[in-house]
């Protein structure tokens, strides 16, 4: 234990200082400028009589140091708290990165008062070169999710790391799209690293620890509280070259991220949506206000002089990949030839199927409506729609509504 404390001396000091109530990154840097030495800062802060610490709702604390009191306020308790944090970090093999670490993300370091301490798991954070964040609504539509997935996937395959907030909807889609490509992905949490929030992302959580990184400026055990998320959003925009907003309602948190991005001088991109869709109000307004409209990866790439080493053979690789995929697909072929090329799929449709397919459009329609337009009875329509759905060229929406699939070669 004592060994550990010696090894983590610096980290422990920063943890302690940041745990003081009312301490912000800005104050920390001011004090750092004043004293130039962490021990001196701590001593200064400690001399202050009304010392009080934050992070009181730490439920996972094994040592239970404050089961009677809600907050702890003396030196003895803060030491125990730090010790327990260190032990737990060790156990989870989570790591700490301080503001003066060489690997501290460059862009973040240059931004206005970045977090002095970052907790992280997974190696992606330490070798981060370029990052772009993709964020958006938690209650995303299929269109939004598939856009986020494809943008993330293609950017990542160009070696760009995708940063997002691990939330439901767009964020998760972006992580999933990027995780298996070379760029990888980083999830930034608004809570302690030991908490998987939202819970249904449990598998993704494990995967990101292995393949990407999960990062938080909050110590272990911090619950996902409302106020943490704007701070988290600031980190998301700070770490990346630009922010892509895919779907945001009128008062979405993604818009906060966009605001931070502007403050920090980052580029803001927005994927347009249907004007009828409430989920698009925010993004469409961003575009009105001057955000760059994104229709493909190129729109994002052309804004940066990004060093994309393999951009030239990007198209070549892509062609190769799709061929490989086709080969793979045909191997486990189950009767219907799967192909990435939607046109050829449509060509191969039977007459009735074709008729139904062309009745559909981007806007989901209920099956009765489709039946009426095609002049076929519902039993037959149901049968055809299932076949089309299995062929992966139409989307099934909640409430037995169908639309064409958003397949676009971005």
């Amino acid at each position, binding site marked *: 234990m004592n060994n550990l404390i010696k090894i983590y001396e610096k980290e422990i000091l920063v943890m302690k200082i940041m745990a003081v109530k009312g301490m912000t990154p800005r104050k920390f840097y001011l004090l750092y400028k004043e004293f130039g030495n962490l021990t001196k800062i701590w001593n200064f802060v400690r001399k202050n009589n009304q010392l009080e610490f934050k992070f009181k709702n730490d439920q996972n604390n094994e040592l239970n140091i404050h089961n009677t009191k809600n907050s702890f306020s003396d030196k003895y308790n803060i030491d125990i708290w730090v010790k327990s944090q260190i032990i737990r970090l060790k156990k989870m093999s989570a790591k700490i990165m301080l503001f003066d670490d060489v690997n501290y993300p460059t862009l973040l370091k240059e931004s206005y008062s970045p977090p002095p301490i970052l907790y992280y798991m997974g190696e992606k954070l330490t070798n981060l070169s370029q990052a772009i964040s993709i964020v958006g609504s938690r*209650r995303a539509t299929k269109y939004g999710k598939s856009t986020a997935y494809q943008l993330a996937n293609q950017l990542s395959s160009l070696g760009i790391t995708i940063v997002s907030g691990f939330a439901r909807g767009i964020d998760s889609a972006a992580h999933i799209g990027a995780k298996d490509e070379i760029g990888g992905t980083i999830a930034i949490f608004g809570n302690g690293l030991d908490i998987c929030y939202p819970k249904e992302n449990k598998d993704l959580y494990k995967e990101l620890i292995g393949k990407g990184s999960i990062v938080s400026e909050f110590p272990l055990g911090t619950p996902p509280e409302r106020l943490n998320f704007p701070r988290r959003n600031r980190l998301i925009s700070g770490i990346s070259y630009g922010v892509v907003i895919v779907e945001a309602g009128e008062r979405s948190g993604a818009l906060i991220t966009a605001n931070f991005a502007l403050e920090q001088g980052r580029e803001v991109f927005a994927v347009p949506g249907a004007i009828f869709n409430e989920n698009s109000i925010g993004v469409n307004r961003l575009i009105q206000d001057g955000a760059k409209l994104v229709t493909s990866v190129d729109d994002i790439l052309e804004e940066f002089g990004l060093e994309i080493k393999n951009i030239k053979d990007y198209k070549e690789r892509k062609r190769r990949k799709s061929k490989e995929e086709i080969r793979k697909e045909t191997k486990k072929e189950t009767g219907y030839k799967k192909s990435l090329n939607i046109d050829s799929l449509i060509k191969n449709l039977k007459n009735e199927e074709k008729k139904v397919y062309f009745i559909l459009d981007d806007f989901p329609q209920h099956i009765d409506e489709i039946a009426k337009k095609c002049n076929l009875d519902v039993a037959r329509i149901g049968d055809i729609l299932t076949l089309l759905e299995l062929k992966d060229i139409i989307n099934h929406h909640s409430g037995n509504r169908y639309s064409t699939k958003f397949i676009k070669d971005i």
Partner: protein
Amino acid sequence: MLAKLDSSGIFGLDAFKVEVEVFLTKSLPSMHIVGLPDKAVNESKERVRAGISSSEFHFPLERITVNLAPADLKKEGPAFDLPIALGVLLATKQLTVDNIEKYMFVGELSLNGDIKRVKGALSMAINCKNEGKEYLIVPKENAIEAAMISEIKVIPVENLNQVVDFLSNKIDIKPLNIDRKSLLKRIPRDDIDFRDVSGQFQVKRALEIAVAGGHNVILTGPPGAGKSMLAKRIPTIISEMTFDEIMEVTKIYSISGLLSSNSHLMKNRPFRSPHHTITDIGLIGGGNYPKPGEISLAHNGVLFLDEIPQFGRNALESLRQPMEDGKVIISRNKASFKFPSKFMLIASANPCPCGFLGDSFNKCRCSHYQISNYKKRLSGPLLDRIDIHVFVPRLSKEDLTGDSDNESSIDIRKRVQKARAVQIKRFSKDAISCNAYMNTKHVSKYCKLDEDAKRLLEMAIEKMGISGRGYYRILKVSRTIADLDKSEDIKINHISEAIQYRVSDKKYF
């Protein structure tokens, strides 16, 4: 000083013979009823005293002991008023009858000597027949119900004087003879018909399949979409009840006292829609003197649970076993009772607490957490017993006002009946009657897929993440679709249509 005559009491769904003994002794005037009477039976002394006096007979000023045998079974209800009154008259020699053992008496007395209707007259008539009695004296209002049993002579009576006159041969009352065939003829219901529902073609098709195969259905959709309206019309497309079915249902309704004075028989299939505050006892049946619950009242008909997530968890979970067995056994400390409960479950639910998830006109405002909590209210095992899940969308203005040619219930019923006939033939050697009741053995025996269909199903399982449960549900439903299509084998279009009605676990329930 002792008079003996027979009456009938209700035990569960059946009646049993009750011997009413009246004994007079010289002592202080009083009246005692023994033989586990309930409150209503015990109060019968006052009605008997008043009834006898109002009918201008003499009520004896002696100690009267009434025994209801067998003494260890509880007796309930006012149906013993008439036999007790007659017993008093016999014991005081104000009335003499030659062959009193040929008769069985039931009826409630009014204070002026009138005889009023009783519950369970049909079961009593059956009991009368089994006991080998010749006459059943019943209140006039129950006569038609009792006369369904043709082996006995049913004498409808209106007041005590009439009974006394009849027994002492002063007047002659003809046994009620009814034309059973004409009574059984169903009066077509013109008040509700599937024609009234405009649009909703997919839902109607799903309901047709459900009725054809006896599948249970859950309808989800925003409020005001017409879920209850559709559900109410389901009985109109089920085939007519057979004579035995009518008797079963009438018996249950008679015992529950739910036959109205102008409908003596339950000729139409019952449709029950209990409110969601119902207790598990109310749903399943039970109580101190066990009474059939809603599931038994829905026997041979439809049980409609509107807003099913609002029902108590206990009540819903207790549905599982009766749904499987088609009957429910209620055990109380004295005895256990068996009530039939072969019903078709139609459940309706909103897709989320606010009701607008998946609606094209309104935006859902529920949080993810709220929605997943709402969905959790229905347990997996219960959903397991519901084969068809279908979404009922809200109609647009055009659909509501436009006059599209809607099919009438009769047309749908014809197709349903044909499909049912196929199933009855198929399952003639098995103990089941329709596709919904197939177990895994039956499924592998009767649900043969052709090559294309097999391939499609495999693909669907892989792509749509269909579970083992879901797999069997799809097979059962596709069997019914094939039956409606008069097809021996299950073809590819049957499977693909059945997939439409699967549980999309991620979306709703």
